[in-house]
Each structure stands twice: as structure tokens, then as C-alpha cells.
């Protein structure tokens, strides 16, 4: 069982985990920024402009493919790591006091990731499939005559059940990021007494701000804070 080279060893798997994770984090920045355009509360015009740019620009479309590859790599790598980690302890402890030495979420990245994946499938079904494959004709055009992805949002988030699932998805993302952000730096060897507090602060801030903004979107629409 040779686990060497750029793809094999345990450490390299973690480097890839960290790199893909940071890449996905960078995507979240773009995603949350564009989506936050809905808070202009201008009937979705700004948001739809952004959405159209994202849908038409060839560079972005290419990046989209890279993004999917990154996501799949993150998932596959995570599954391999998870199964190796399971195998590393064939007999479990009868009593294990994990709370004494680690946060629960740092030891639950696989479960949190899986929850996020389920959420993601639903999320893609709700929006990406419509915007990229089946089309958004159903929602007509917005005031500026652009394709109305915003209209899709308004419709999807009328269902309270969906809103709750989205909020739960954001919670999973929050916990996943809270460990993942810092952890990625550690896996890449970026640990330095002077900069650790900054990384920790950024990680926590990012984990709170981004999922909160995301969660606010369905909530705001459902509660009709924005129309």
C-alpha cells in the first residue's frame, strides 16, 4: 500500500484538502458578494446584472468547471481521508471524552461536509440547474429586461420548509468553516506565533459573516424585508 508522491501520502492528501478548501472559500467570497446585491432591494436589477455576467462571461464559465472539479476533489479527498481514519481505529473506545481536548466540530468535519453536500445538491437544483440548463423563462424578465434569477429566489424562498433547510445549511457551513479555515493554514504549514492570532480572527470572522449573510437571504425574502 504505497501512499507516496503528489497524490498518495497522508500529508499530500491534506495539502490538497487545504488547497481545495481555500479555493472553495475564495468562491464563497464571490458568491456572497454577488448575492448580497439583493439587499439593494431594487427588484433584483443589480443582482440580475451580476448573475447575467456570471452566466455569460467565458472566463467565469471556465472557472465554474474548475470550481466543480475543486469541489469534487475536496469531497473525494475528504472521503478517502475519512475512511482511512476510520480504519486507523478498528476498535473504538467504550468511553471517549472528546470534549476534554477538542471542539466537537473539528472532529466532525466529515459529517458537516456531508450535510453541506446535501444542502448543495438542493441548492444547485433550486438555482444552478434553472439558470444554466432548464432556463429562467418561467420568471419573465426584470425591470431592465434581464433574465430574472431574482424571481426564482423570491419563489423558492416562499416555502418556510426550504428556508429552514437553507438556514440549517448555513449553520453547517459555519461550523465547517470555523475549523476548516484555520485548519487549512495549519495543513499548509502556515503557522507562526505572530500571525496565528490574525489567521484565527480572520477565520472566525469569515465563518460568522459569510454564512450569516447567506442565511439572511432566504429569511429576508420569506419575511418580505426585500421584495
Amino acid at each position: 500500500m504505497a501512499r507516496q508522491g503528489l497524490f498518495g501520502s497522508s500529508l499530500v492528501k491534506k495539502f490538497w484538502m487545504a488547497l481545495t478548501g481555500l479555493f472553495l472559500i475564495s468562491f464563497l467570497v464571490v458568491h456572497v458578494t454577488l448575492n448580497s446585491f439583493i439587499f439593494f432591494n431594487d427588484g433584483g436589477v443589480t443582482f440580475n446584472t451580476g448573475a447575467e455576467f456570471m452566466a455569460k462571461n467565458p472566463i467565469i464559465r471556465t472557472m465554474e468547471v474548475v470550481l466543480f472539479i475543486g469541489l469534487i476533489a475536496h469531497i473525494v479527498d475528504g472521503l478517502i481521508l475519512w475512511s482511512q481514519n476510520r480504519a486507523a481505529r478498528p476498535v473504538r473506545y467504550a468511553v471517549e471524552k472528546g470534549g476534554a481536548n477538542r471542539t466537537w466540530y473539528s472532529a466532525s468535519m466529515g459529517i458537516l461536509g456531508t450535510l453541506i453536500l446535501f444542502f448543495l445538491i438542493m441548492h444547485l437544483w433550486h438555482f444552478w440547474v434553472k439558470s444554466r440548463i432548464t432556463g429562467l423563462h418561467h420568471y419573465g424578465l426584470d425591470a431592465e429586461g434581464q433574465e430574472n434569477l431574482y424571481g426564482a429566489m423570491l419563489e423558492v424562498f416562499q416555502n418556510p420548509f426550504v428556508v429552514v433547510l437553507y438556514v440549517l445549511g448555513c449553520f453547517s457551513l459555519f461550523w465547517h468553516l470555523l475549523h476548516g479555515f484555520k485548519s487549512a493554514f495549519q495543513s499548509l504549514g502556515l503557522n507562526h506565533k505572530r500571525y496565528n492570532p490574525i489567521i484565527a480572527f480572520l477565520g472566525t470572522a469569515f465563518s460568522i459573516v459569510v454564512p450569516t449573510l447567506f442565511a439572511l437571504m432566504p429569511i429576508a425574502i420569506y419575511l418580505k424585508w426585500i421584495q
Partner: protein
Amino acid sequence: MGNMKLTLKVWRQNGPNDKGKIVDYPVNDVSEDMSFLEMLDVLNDELVRKGEEPIAFDHDCREGICGMCSLFINGEAHGPGRGITTCQLHMRKFKDGDTIHVEPWRSAAFPVIKDLATNRGAFDRIQAAGGFVSVNTSGNLVDGNALPIPKPDADKAFDAATCIGCGACVATCPNGSAMLFTAAKVSQLSLLPQGQVERKQRALAMVEQMDKEGFGNCSNTGACEIECPKGISLEHIARLNREYLAATVTKE
């Protein structure tokens, strides 16, 4: 003298191929001045007198430095208390009437020999893969002071070098990873000028052996650092990651 009564739930396993089970033992007359292992001595004494087989557990120096003692006590490596090994755990940390779970280190790489004793030979093999400076014995080496080492580097290297190889890091890691152990040695030698020559090769070889042994992968939960009796820092794991990454991308 002894005033505590305890119930122990101890893992008994007759050999590597036995399935093993948890057995309850009442222990009376436990004094708070006893170490945890002395409490087990008392129980074993009783068992032998009754004609039963005593509980097998590893121990040697009983002063927290040889790394031979282990035990997962009440869900924690080396039991409650920080910066100590099981032999330094004293019964004043428990109270009358307590139930205490005692299990061996659990890891695919540390098979159980009997009861609470496990085989940690994997650590020796990791060490043999590269945890050294290749210098033969010779009466003609340069003077020790010919190579000044900045005190902060020497201190940091020392911190890493205090690893006692007990395996608590593996035992406590939710993934059964041996990164803290491996990192401590790689880090010590990469911080010192003596270790530079074999720096890349060492990181690659020790990680390769670590993987071969069947340890899990580090997910940076930090549990090892907290349960490590010598308080070895995660900083060393980061350094190993750096060393390994650099060695991997630059190796020819």
C-alpha cells in the same frame, strides 16, 4: 490510610486474537497519595492472592519520562490532568465512589498484546526510517562549541525533543494519527544545524513509514497537543507540513 472505594471497568483481553471485554472490579482502601498505577498494583495484588490473573499493563520508570505507561482513563489518554503520564496521575484526582473506565490505546498500528498492554513498535520503525543525524561515533568530531546555535532555536528543538514516545497523541486523536510524534522528531532536527544535511530525506522517509504503519490522517483537531504529557505544540506539526511540502516539490 486508604479511604476511597472505587469501581474499575477494565478492558481484559487474553491476547492479540482474543475479542476482549470490559470487566468490573471494586477496589477498596485507595489512598489519595497513591499513583494510578499503584492503585492498579493493589488490585493486582488482590487478584493474585485470589488466584486470578492480574491485569497486564505497561509501566517502567514511574516518573513520567520513559513513556512506557499508557492507559485511556475515563475517556482520556493518561487520564484527567494535563502534562502528566498515567504513572504521575494521583488518586487525589478522583473521589470516593467514582467509576473509572480503563482501556488500552486504540489504534490499528498499536495492536493489543494483552489487557492494557499494546505494541508500539511502529514508533521505532518511524524513528529508524530517518529520525537521526547520520554521524558515526568518532573521537575526532568538531568541538561542541564550534557550532553555536541561537538559544531560541535550541530551546524550540528541545521542546520538540522532549517527546517520550508514549503514543498518547495517537490514542487521543479521533483519527488515530501519529503526526505529533513524527513531527516532534522532524521538527527537532530541522531546527538544528546538525539536521540540515538530511532534512528533506528525513521528512519524506519518516512520513512514508508513518503512513505504512496504518496511522490515520491529521485533521488539526489539536487533541494531541492537549493530551501530550510533554505539551508538544501543534507548531511542530505545521513545521513538518512545511518540511514535507518543500521536500516533495523539490525532490529530484
